[in-house]
C-alpha cells in the first residue's frame, strides 16, 4: 500500500507515530530517570555487593599472586616468597590504612583476623629489615641517594634486571605521592624497597652498583611475622586468604543460607551458628499468618464498606484509613501499651477474672505481638483492594442466587466469594510482600522470636557493617519474592488480580 505521496503506507504511519512516541518518552523521562537512579541502580548495586570481593586482591596484590604457588591442602604455612610479598603489601596497606578494613572483611570468615591485621599493621615498620638498608647504603652512598634511585628506576635495563625492586619501588613512589604528598626523588626509599632489592640480588640479578651480599645476614620474614603473631604460620589463616582472594565470592551467599566453605568444600555451619534459614522460614510463616489474619479480618469490613449506604460507608472508610494518618511508631508503641503483661488487655482480662493475676498472657516480645501489630498496620492494604473489587460486584448477583433458591451462605460462597477472589489475590500479594520486608514493627514488638529477616539485614547494615552479607540476604529475599510472584502468576494468573475497577 502506498500513501498519497507515494511512500509506503507503513513507513508513513511509522513516521507519524514516531513523533508521538518521542513526545511520550520525553514526558515519562523524569520518572524513568528517577526510577533508574533511585531503584534499579541501588538494586544492581546490592546484587553486586553480595558477590564483590576485590578488597583482598586490591590490598594484597603481590601476596595473592605469590599464593598461587602455595598448596592450600598442605599442612604448612607458605614459604618466604609469600611472606616477602606480604611484607611489601602490608607495609603499603598500613600507610594507606586499608589493612584494617581488609582485616574486618576477612574476620567475617575467620574470627581473629581483624586483630591479626591491626597488630601486624602496627608492627610491620619495626621489622629488622633495616639491616638490608644499612648494608646497601654502607656499601655505596649512591644507595642512599633518592635522586639516584629515581634515576635508576627510569632506566629500562635496570628495571628489567630488578623486577621485584621495580615493582616495589613503583608502588612505594605512588604511595609517597598520594599519602605523604612528597616527591619520590627527594625521599629515601623505605626498608621494604631495600628488602626487595636484596631479594633480586640474592636471586642473581645484576645490581646497578655491585655490592657484596655475603656480609648480610638474611632476615627471615616468615619468622618476623610469626613473632608478631603465631597465627601467621597457621595454614588456616592462609587458606582463608587464598580462598577469598578472587574478585568475586559466594561466601556471603553461603553464609546467608547457613553454609560455609570448609576444607572439603561447602558444608553446613555448626548447629549453634545456624541462623538464617530459620529466620527465613520464620519470616515466611509469620508473613503468611499476617496475610491470613488480614483476609479474615479485612473481608467482612470490605464487604460492609461496599454494601453500606454511602454516608456510613464513608465514615467506615475514614476509620479504615485512620491508621494511615498516624505515625507507624505511635501505633506500634500503642500496641506495646495494650499488649504488655501489665497492659490494658491483660488488666481487663484479670479484672473480668478470665485469667489469674499471676497467669497474665504474654502477647508481646514474641510472634503473637508481631502478628497482632502487623495485622493492624497492614489491614488497610487488604481492605482497599478487596473493597474496590467488591464495589464492582452488583448486589443483583446475590439476589439472583437467592431467587434461584440458594441460601444466604450458598449464595455468598458460590456466587459472591468467587468474584471477590481477585481482590483477595491483590490484597494477599500486597500484604505478603509488604510484611516480608517489614522492619520497624517486629523490631519493637517482636522480641527475639518475632523478628523478620529484615531485622538481620538492618543489623548487618547499621551495626556489624557486614554489607556483603546484608546484600546477600536482601538478594535472596528479592529472589524468593519474585519466585513466589511467578508461582502466583502460574497458579492464579496475575491478570486475575485487581486493585480496582
Amino acid at each position, binding site marked *: 500500500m502506498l500513501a498519497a505521496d507515494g511512500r509506503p503506507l507503513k513507513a508513513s504511519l511509522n513516521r507519524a507515530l514516531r513523533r508521538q512516541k518521542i*513526545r511520550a518518552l*520525553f*514526558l515519562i*523521562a*523524569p520518572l524513568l530517570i528517577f526510577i533508574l537512579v533511585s531503584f534499579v541502580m541501588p538494586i544492581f548495586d546490592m546484587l553486586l555487593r553480595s558477590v564483590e570481593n576485590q578488597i583482598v586482591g586490591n590490598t594484597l596484590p603481590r601476596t595473592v599472586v605469590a599464593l598461587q604457588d602455595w598448596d592450600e591442602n598442605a599442612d604448612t604455612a607458605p614459604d618466604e616468597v609469600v611472606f616477602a610479598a606480604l611484607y611489601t603489601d602490608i607495609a603499603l596497606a598500613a600507610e594507606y*590504612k*586499608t589493612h*584494617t*578494613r581488609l*582485616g*574486618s572483611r576477612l*574476620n*567475617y570468615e575467620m*574470627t*581473629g*583476623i*581483624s*586483630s591479626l591485621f*591491626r597488630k601486624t599493621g602496627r608492627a610491620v615498620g619495626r621489622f629488622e629489615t633495616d639491616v638490608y638498608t644499612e648494608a646497601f647504603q654502607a656499601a655505596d652512598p649512591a644507595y642512599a641517594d633518592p635522586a639516584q634511585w629515581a634515576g635508576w628506576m627510569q632506566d629500562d635495563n635496570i628495571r628489567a634486571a630488578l623486577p621485584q625492586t621495580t615493582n616495589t619501588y613503583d608502588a612505594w613512589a605512588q604511595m609517597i605521592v598520594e599519602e605523604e604528598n612528597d616527591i619520590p626523588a627527594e625521599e629515601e626509599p623505605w626498608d621494604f624497597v631495600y628488602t626487595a632489592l636484596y631479594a633480586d640480588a640474592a636471586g642473581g640479578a645484576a645490581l646497578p652498583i655491585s655490592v657484596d651480599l655475603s656480609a648480610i645476614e638474611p632476615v627471615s620474614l616468615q619468622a618476623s611475622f610469626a613473632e608478631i603473631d603465631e597465627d601467621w604460620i597457621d595454614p588456616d589463616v592462609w587458606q582463608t586468604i587464598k580462598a577469598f582472594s578472587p574478585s568475586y565470592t559466594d561466601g556471603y551467599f553461603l553464609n546467608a543460607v547457613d553454609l560455609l566453605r570448609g576444607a572439603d568444600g561447602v558444608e553446613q555451619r555448626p548447629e*549453634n*551458628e*545456624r*541462623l538464617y534459614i*530459620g*529466620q527465613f522460614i*520464620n519470616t515466611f510463616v509469620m508473613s503468611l499468618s499476617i496475610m491470613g489474619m488480614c483476609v479474615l479480618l479485612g473481608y467482612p469490613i470490605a464487604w460492609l464498606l461496599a454494601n453500606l449506604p454511602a454516608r456510613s460507608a464513608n465514615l467506615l472508610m475514614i476509620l479504615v484509613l485512620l491508621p494511615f494518618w498516624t505515625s507507624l511508631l505511635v501505633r506500634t508503641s500503642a500496641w506495646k501499651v495494650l499488649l*504488655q*503483661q*501489665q*497492659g490494658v488487655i491483660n488488666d481487663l482480662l484479670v479484672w473480668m477474672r478470665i485469667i489469674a493475676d499471676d497467669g497474665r498472657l504474654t502477647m508481646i*516480645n514474641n510472634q503473637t505481638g508481631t502478628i497482632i501489630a502487623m495485622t493492624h498496620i497492614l489491614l488497610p492494604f487488604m481492605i482497599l483492594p478487596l473493597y474496590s473489587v467488591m464495589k464492582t460486584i452488583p448486589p443483583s448477583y446475590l439476589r439472583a442466587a437467592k431467587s434461584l433458591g440458594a441460601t444466604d451462605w450458598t449464595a455468598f460462597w458460590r456466587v459472591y466469594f468467587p468474584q471477590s477472589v481477585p481482590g483477595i489475590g491483590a490484597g494477599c500479594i500486597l500484604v505478603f510482600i509488604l510484611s516480608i520486608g517489614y522492619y520497624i514493627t517486629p*523490631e519493637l514488638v517482636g*522480641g*527475639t*522470636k518475632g523478628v523478620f529477616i529484615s531485622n*538481620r539485614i538492618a543489623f548487618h*547494615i*547499621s*551495626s*556489624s*557493617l*557486614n*554489607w556483603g552479607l546484608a546484600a546477600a540476604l536482601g538478594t535472596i529475599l528479592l529472589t524468593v519474592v519474585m519466585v513466589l510472584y511467578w508461582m502466583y502468576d502460574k497458579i492464579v494468573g496475575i491478570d486475575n488480580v485487581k486493585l480496582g475497577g
Partner: protein
Amino acid sequence: MKTTLKLMATTCLTLTATMAVADGHMANEMTIVSWGGAYSASQDNAYHQPYIAQSGISIINDESASEAVAKLRAMNEAGNITWDLVDVEAADAIRLCDEGLAMEVDVDEVLAAAPDGTSATDDFGGALVSDCFIPQIVFSTTFGYRTDMVPEGVEPPSGACDVFDLETYPGKRALNRNPIANMEWALLCDGVAYEDVYDMLETDEGQAQAFAKLDTIKDQTIWWTAGAETPQLLADGEIFMGSTYNGRLFSLIAEQGQPVGMAWDWQMFDLDGWVIPTGLSEDRLARTLDYVYFATDTQRLADQAAYISYGPTRQSSAPLVGKHATLGIDMAPHMPTEPSNAENTFYNNYLWWADYRDDLDAKFQAWLAQ
C-alpha cells in the same frame, strides 16, 4: 515539545542546585552528631553553648549517632561527608578506625593538656582505646530494679549476678539483645575469675558455659535493643530488674522519682567519645579541631557531669564534678566511677570484641532464636 524540554531543563537545574546546596557546607557552621535526649542536652549545655558564645560558629545537632557507623560508611562511599564530628561508643570508634572512616588523631597535639601541665595522653590514660578516639565520658551498663517488687525479707539485689538468681529474685528481666556484656556477666557469675573471662570466651567450652548460664533465665528475659526500653519496662512494672546505661537509670530515679534502685556490682564500664570523619576539607577540619580542643578540656568535661550522671574521662576533671545543674544534688555518688559504686567493675575489652563480635553475634542470635 519545547515546553517539555524547558521543563526538563528546569528540573535538572533545580536538582543540581539542591544537590549543590546540600553539598556546600556553610562557612560558619558545623554538624555534630550525637545520641539525642538528655545526653545531647548535656553536651549542648556544657560544650555547644559556651563554644557558640565564644566563636560565633553555629552548631547543627544531628541525633543519628546510633546509625553513625553505617552512615559514615555510606557518606564515605558517596564521597560526600556532611558530618564534622561524631559521638560514638569506643567499640564503634575502633570499628570506624579499622575501616578508615575515622581520622587518626595525635592526642597531645590536638587536645589541651591538664591545668597542672599533665599531657593529654596521661590525663586520659587508659581511655585512649583507639588512635581515632577522643574520649569524653565514662558510662556503664548496669542494673536497675523495682524496689517495690523485692520479695519481703530479702536483701535488694546488689549487682549483675543477681539477675541470674531467679529463686531469690523472681520476675522478668531485661537484657541487651547482643552478646556484649551478657556473655561476660554469664561467665563471671558462673564462677569464672574476672581476668579469665575473655580467654574463656575465645573457646567453644567457654561460650557454651556462658550460654548455659544465660539459658537459666532465657524464658524470663525481655531482650532490648534501645537503651530507653529498660527504664520504660521498669516504670511499667513489666520487669523486676534490667540492664541499661546508668544515666538512664539516674534520670528514672532522680528526675522521675520512680521506685527503682541501682545494683552497681560488676557494672560494665564503657567509654564514649568523639571521632572526626576522614575526608574533611582543610577549613572544616580546622574548625572541628578547634571545637574539639575546647570541648574536651578539663573544665568542659567536668561541666557535662552537672547535667548527666556520666563521669569525665580526664583524671583532672574528677575533682571538679559538682552538683546537678537543676536538681542541686551531688553528682559524684551517681557516677559509675564513684568508689562505692565501682567496687567491682568490668572493663569492656573493645579490641577483643572487635575480633569476636561477628562470630559471637551469630551464635548469640542463633541461641536466641532456638
